[in-house]
């Protein structure tokens, strides 16, 4: 299938391209809109996740704090009961799954004068058995540690910064410390509960709204409490991480977080376009959820891919649908085309398919039918015109035959003279004529040229020829012959037609020639020596003009061996394309070069050939007549 040559396909393709353009634009706008929506939603989702995460961690913290609060009064009532103090810490660990260790650390010297006394219970890392011990000694000088010293100084409960405890549990932890006071409000020790940061990290790590998102928890000074990368916990702070980034936004986020603010910020996280929602926890910690835009775009991209796929299917369906529709609609055009082709091949009555609709197709169908009708009418007309032309042409040919038969073709076969003549009409019939009559040892000859040419001239030529032949045979003088022919042609000549005639009567014994020139071209005489000259004669009017015009004849003696060349102006006025004429000079030049003794037939044909050679194929504009009479 050639898509470009098929109208239906081409149109469908165009419609489809336009539709594709529109759909593409709509899809693009939808995608942008979807992206904006997804972005907004992503913020909301991230915030919700953050809120949930904060809530979850707060719950843990609250549970721990409440557990410590709950045992506080019991400890204060059994300050001297060593056994009980161990049991309390043990119970605290056992009944609170979030608590991995608990201690009652006394001020140095308070408990029975001992420099260090701190009953401590902790959960074994793997066995989950609870071990108890007294952890204070000279190596583990707990009163100097943060978890002891800071709440002591602050005088209120405190969550420690994350640290690695090497006193017992041997893991990373954060400790909730509550100051213990006696009846006077004097500090006597610190009651603690530890939570495992590994465990916290695990819980936090499981909070992620998107595939590449993660959640982090930092302490008051920015150190990581929970982070998907466990190596960062304890070892790094949010600020040391930010230092490695080119985007300083991370640094600002860190400051905002430790200031206990809530917010949302976009930043380049290790060159990954991201955003972070963060919020404070009640104990001074701060939690953040980091999401990459990659994940969010991914969702948008999925939508776009689905849309594009649907678009493609839709377009293909549209293409085939439209094409089939157009094909169906334009089927009559194909049928019209076939009909037109049939008509063009000559079957003018080919059936043109009917159209029921009243639209452009109906118009086309009517036009085609009208054309068919017009062609049929035209053909009928053409046939009759052609027939008329053929009839006219054949009649002209018959006329030509008749006219040619009027000109004698049986030239005299004599020893004392050679006579030949020819007429070449410019059209089928012409107005030139020649004639000759042998009268004993004399010969009577004439060449005439009727004004104009074609059928009118031919008719007049026929009259002139008949008149001349009859009157010429009466044996009258040349002047008398010319006068009578003139009167005969003047009779009823309303169209002012006339004939120029050169007529002569040559006595072949004596060479005496009587002649009359009625307005005709001067004849050429070529002497026996080959010298050619024009015979200048008295000018008489052409015959047919004025009745009773007195024609005059003259007499000369023609030397034996001389040749007379009589012609019509078709010879001297034969023209080339450039309008230059053969002329009298060329005629005389030709005559002068002619072999004096050559036969008249050869002389006539030679002159005609010369004229034709001169005109170089230009249209002949007048009848040509040539006669040669050689007196031997």
């Amino acid at each position, binding site marked *: 299938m050639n898509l470009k040559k098929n109208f239906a396909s081409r149109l469908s393709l165009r419609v489809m391209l336009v539709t594709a353009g529109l759909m593409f634009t709509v899809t693009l706008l939808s995608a942008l809109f979807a992206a904006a929506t997804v972005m907004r939603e992503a913020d909301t989702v991230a915030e919700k996740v953050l809120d949930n995460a904060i809530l979850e961690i707060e719950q843990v913290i609250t549970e721990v704090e409440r557990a410590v609060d709950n045992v506080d009064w019991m400890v204060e009532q059994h300050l001297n009961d060593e056994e009980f103090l161990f049991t309390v810490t043990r119970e605290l660990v056992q009944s609170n799954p979030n608590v991995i260790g608990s201690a009652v650390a006394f001020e140095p010297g308070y408990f029975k004068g001992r420099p260090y006394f701190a009953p401590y219970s902790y959960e074994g890392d793997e066995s989950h058995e609870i071990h108890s011990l007294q952890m204070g000694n000279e190596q583990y000088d707990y009163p100097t540690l943060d978890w002891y010293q800071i709440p002591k100084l602050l005088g209120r409960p405190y969550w420690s910064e994350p640290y690695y405890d090497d006193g017992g549990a041997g893991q990373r932890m954060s400790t909730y410390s509550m100051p213990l006071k006696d009846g006077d409000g004097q500090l006597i020790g610190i009651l603690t509960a530890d939570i495992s940061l590994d465990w916290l990290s695990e819980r936090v790590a499981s909070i992620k709204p998107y595939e590449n998102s993660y959640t982090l928890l930092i302490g008051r000074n920015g150190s990581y409490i929970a982070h998907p990368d466990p190596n960062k916990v304890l070892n790094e702070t949010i600020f040391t991480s930010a230092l490695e980034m080119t985007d300083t936004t991370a640094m600002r986020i860190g400051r905002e977080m430790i200031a206990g603010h809530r917010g949302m910020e976009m930043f380049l996280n290790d060159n990954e376009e991201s955003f972070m929602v963060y919020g404070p926890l009640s104990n001074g910690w701060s939690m953040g959820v980091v999401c990459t835009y990659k994940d969010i775009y991914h969702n948008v991209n999925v939508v776009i891919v689905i849309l594009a796929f649907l678009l493609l299917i839709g377009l293909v369906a549209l293409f085939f649908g439209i094409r089939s529709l157009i094909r169906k609609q334009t089927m009559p055009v194909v049928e019209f085309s076939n009909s037109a082709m049939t008509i063009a091949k000559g079957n003018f009555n080919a059936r043109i398919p009917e159209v029921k609709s009243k639209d452009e197709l109906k118009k086309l169908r009517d036009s085609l039918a009208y054309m068919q009708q017009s062609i049929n009418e035209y053909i009928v007309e053409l046939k009759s015109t052609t027939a008329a032309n053929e009839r006219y042409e054949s009649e002209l040919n018959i006329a030509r035959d008749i006219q040619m038969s009027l000109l004698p073709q049986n030239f005299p076969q004599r020893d004392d003279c050679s006579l030949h003549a020819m007429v070449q009409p410019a059209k089928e019939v012409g107005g030139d004529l020649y004639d000759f009559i042998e009268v004993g040892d004399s010969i009577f000859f004439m060449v005439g040229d009727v004004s104009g040419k074609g059928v009118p001239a031919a008719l007049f030529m026929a009259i002139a020829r008949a008149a001349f032949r009859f009157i010429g045979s009466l044996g009258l003088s040349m002047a008398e012959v010319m006068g009578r022919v003139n009167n005969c042609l003047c009779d009823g000549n309303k169209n002012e037609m006339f004939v120029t005639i050169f007529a002569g009567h040559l006595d072949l014994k004596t060479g005496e020639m009587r002649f009359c020139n009625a*307005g005709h071209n001067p004849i050429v005489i070529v002497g026996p020596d080959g010298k050619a000259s024009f015979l200048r004669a008295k*000018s008489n*009017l052409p015959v047919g003009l004025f009745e009773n015009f007195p024609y005059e004849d003259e007499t000369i003696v023609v030397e034996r061996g001389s040749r007379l060349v009589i012609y019509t102006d078709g010879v001297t006025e034969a023209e080339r394309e450039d309008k230059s004429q053969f002329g009298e000079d060329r005629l005389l030049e030709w005559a002068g070069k002619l072999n004096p003794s050559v036969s008249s037939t050869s002389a006539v044909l030679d002159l005609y050939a010369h004229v034709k050679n001169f005109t170089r194929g230009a249209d002949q504009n007048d009848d040509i007549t040539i006669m040669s009479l050689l007196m031997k």
Partner: protein
Amino acid sequence: MNVTINEDGAKALVKLEGRLDTTNADQFMKDITPLMNGAHEEIDVDCTDMEYTSSQGLRMFLMLQKNVSARGAKLVLRNMKPHVKEVFDITGFSHIITIV
């Protein structure tokens, strides 16, 4: 063939230019029809720029001459080129048409 006719009272001044042959004889006839139908006492034809005339052309001059003679007017052809004049001489037309 170009025919220009100017009128000077009862006199018609005609100027002929170019060739008068079979192809334009009919047009020439139409061009000089006003002279045939008019009542000019004298028709003065300037032939200075006339290059050629065929026997058909001669016939037109003859018809004009006969028309003019019939109503007692005068036709004069002037300044004819020698080779054109020759045609009028050969055919004897110079006997019936005034050429000066």
